[in-house]
């Protein structure tokens, strides 16, 4: 089996030099996906991939310059793909074949990228370990006894294991950045409102955003250029020019002010090896010319509580649509309500049920003001603190996760311990900011992630800081 090129831009260059063809790349990626040992894929779409690759080769022969033309990619199976089963990792969507594709899939189709298949995930993206999938847990390629993070674990692993060149995930509280950190790849969540969510299975609508995984920062920037831009079918988007997201990739960090929010370094349970790697990365950025600024985001501590009220509340509304009537699983009951109850009782896994009950409780009469409305007010405080900080710094640099990948099963019976995985990532979703995780070395043989957070719509800054650090990252060998 041929190895795939290492990065999106290397693959694009090889295609243009005729050293390989889109069909060759697609066949190699399909073979790797079929031979995957980490349960990263729910569905490998071999015929679809080869058909797309043939069309890409024709466009290449005509001299088409699209940077994603002929590049294999993997799609988190919460993003709808016309004619290709889409499960959201749930039994309740059993057999569902979308009659239309998500806008992000259409945009990658138009760019000539070649979709290899659909990747495993926590059910409805609810999880931080990929153990909540109806299709079984995804394993970390650096240690198969450990989790890859979640919820976009399959997409992260498909890239980390060299089975595809890039992938799409969704990030509601860290579901792109945390698995990117735990598997040693680059993962990026755009500003809320940057990317269309039309055709993406909705989880928590004020927080969800689609974004890329790749082996390098430039790959993520190239994918974002294809994804960004207004979609008339999504009313929750901003009218903003995408700009040149790659403009700053080689500009370095000299003269930039990078904020270090102290609350992100004072967390109980932070592994010393993780903290050491992140502090080394920050020193490397300083040596490269960045000015470090100590800042404070005092409400960080409330992020988890805000998130675990708003997110389940929104999920309880969004997931009301799974009723056994129009698509998916149906378990017949004695009347309509009984059919709903049985269908949802049989179709949803434990974590989804927990969150739907929590969310319904937080929205119910007598509790709405104490829980949901209160969380929305504290959300305002969190957002305001970020806005104040971004008047003084160009970007923030933090750990992505306080730990390296943990053993499968270690936290499955303790939801709160599992939720604590996302304390560094979910404030970014609460505020709607763009964030990115990239590898910053190894602790205990496992990857550590550095998180960069930028101001609203300043993804170019995110990529600039990340690309400046990328060549400075330590190159120790991973466990695998």
């Amino acid at each position, binding site marked *: 089996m041929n190895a795939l090129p290492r990065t999106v831009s290397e693959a694009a260059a090889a295609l243009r030099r005729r050293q390989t063809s889109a069909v060759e790349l697609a066949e190699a990626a399909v073979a790797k996906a079929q031979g995957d040992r980490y349960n990263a894929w729910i569905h490998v779409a071999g015929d679809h991939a080869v058909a797309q690759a043939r069309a890409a080769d024709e466009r290449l022969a005509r001299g088409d310059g699209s940077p994603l033309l002929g590049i294999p990619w993997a799609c988190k199976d919460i993003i709808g793909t016309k004619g290709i089963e889409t499960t959201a990792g749930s039994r309740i969507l059993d057999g569902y074949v979308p009659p239309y594709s998500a806008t992000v899939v259409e945009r990658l189709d138009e760019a000539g990228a070649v979709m290899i298949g659909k990747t495993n995930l926590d059910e409805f993206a609810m999880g931080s370990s990929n153990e909540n999938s109806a299709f079984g847990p995804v394993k970390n390629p650096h240690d198969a006894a450990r989790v890859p993070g979640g919820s976009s674990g399959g997409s992260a692993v498909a890239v980390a294991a060299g089975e595809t060149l890039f992938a799409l995930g969704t990030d509601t509280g860290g579901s792109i950045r945390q698995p990117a950190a735990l598997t040693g790849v680059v993962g990026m969540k755009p500003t809320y409102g940057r990317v269309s969510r039309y055709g993406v299975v909705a989880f928590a609508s004020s927080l969800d955003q689609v974004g890329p995984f790749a082996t390098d920062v430039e790959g993520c920037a190239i994918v974002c250029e294809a994804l960004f831009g207004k979609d008339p079918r999504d009313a929750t988007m901003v*009218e903003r020019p995408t700009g040149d997201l790659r403009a700053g990739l080689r500009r370095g960090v000299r003269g930039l002010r990078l904020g270090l929010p102290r609350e992100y370094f004072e967390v109980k349970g932070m592994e010393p090896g993780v903290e050491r790697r992140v502090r080394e990365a920050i020193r490397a950025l300083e040596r490269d010319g960045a000015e470090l600024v100590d800042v404070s985001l005092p409400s960080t501590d409330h992020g988890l509580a805000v998130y675990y009220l708003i997110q389940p509340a929104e999920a309880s509304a969004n997931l009301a649509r799974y009723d056994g009537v129009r698509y998916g699983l149906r378990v017949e009951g004695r009347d309509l309500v009984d059919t709903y109850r049985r269908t949802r009782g049989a179709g949803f896994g434990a974590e989804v049920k927990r969150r739907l009950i929590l969310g319904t409780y937080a929205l119910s009469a007598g509790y709405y003001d104490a829980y949901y409305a209160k969380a929305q007010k504290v959300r305002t405080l969190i957002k305001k603190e970020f806005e104040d900080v971004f008047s003084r710094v160009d970007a923030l640099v933090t750990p992505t996760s306080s730990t390296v990948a943990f053993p499968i099963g270690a936290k499955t019976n303790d939801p709160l311990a599992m939720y604590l995985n996302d304390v560094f990532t979910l404030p970014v979703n609460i505020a709607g900011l763009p964030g990115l995780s990239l590898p910053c070395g190894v602790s205990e043989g496992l990857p550590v992630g550095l998180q960069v957070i930028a101001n609203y719509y300043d993804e170019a800054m995110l990529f600039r800081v990340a690309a400046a650090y990328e060549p400075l990252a330590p190159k120790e060998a991973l466990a695998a």
Partner: protein
Amino acid sequence: MSTIDRATVEKVAGLARIALTEAEVARFTDQLSVVLDAVDRLRAVDTSDVPPTASILPTFDVMRADEPEPSLPLEDVFRNAPLREGDLFRVQTPLEER
């Protein structure tokens, strides 16, 4: 302190239209109590005069031109339907029997 009891879990699961087993009710009662205790810390935050944020977007009431577009092909849509009757989804009577 907002420890949730079994009866509340059963009631809320009913509102959410989710059938739970006895074992699930017991487990969720314990687990949700822990989570609710954790989120209860928000009560101590002073939010007088703080407006709620429902969405971080500066926009609201986004409109587009009301121009007709072709609908999805019916066969593609009904391909997913558990019960179909002609060009309709078949449902049971929505009224619970008394």
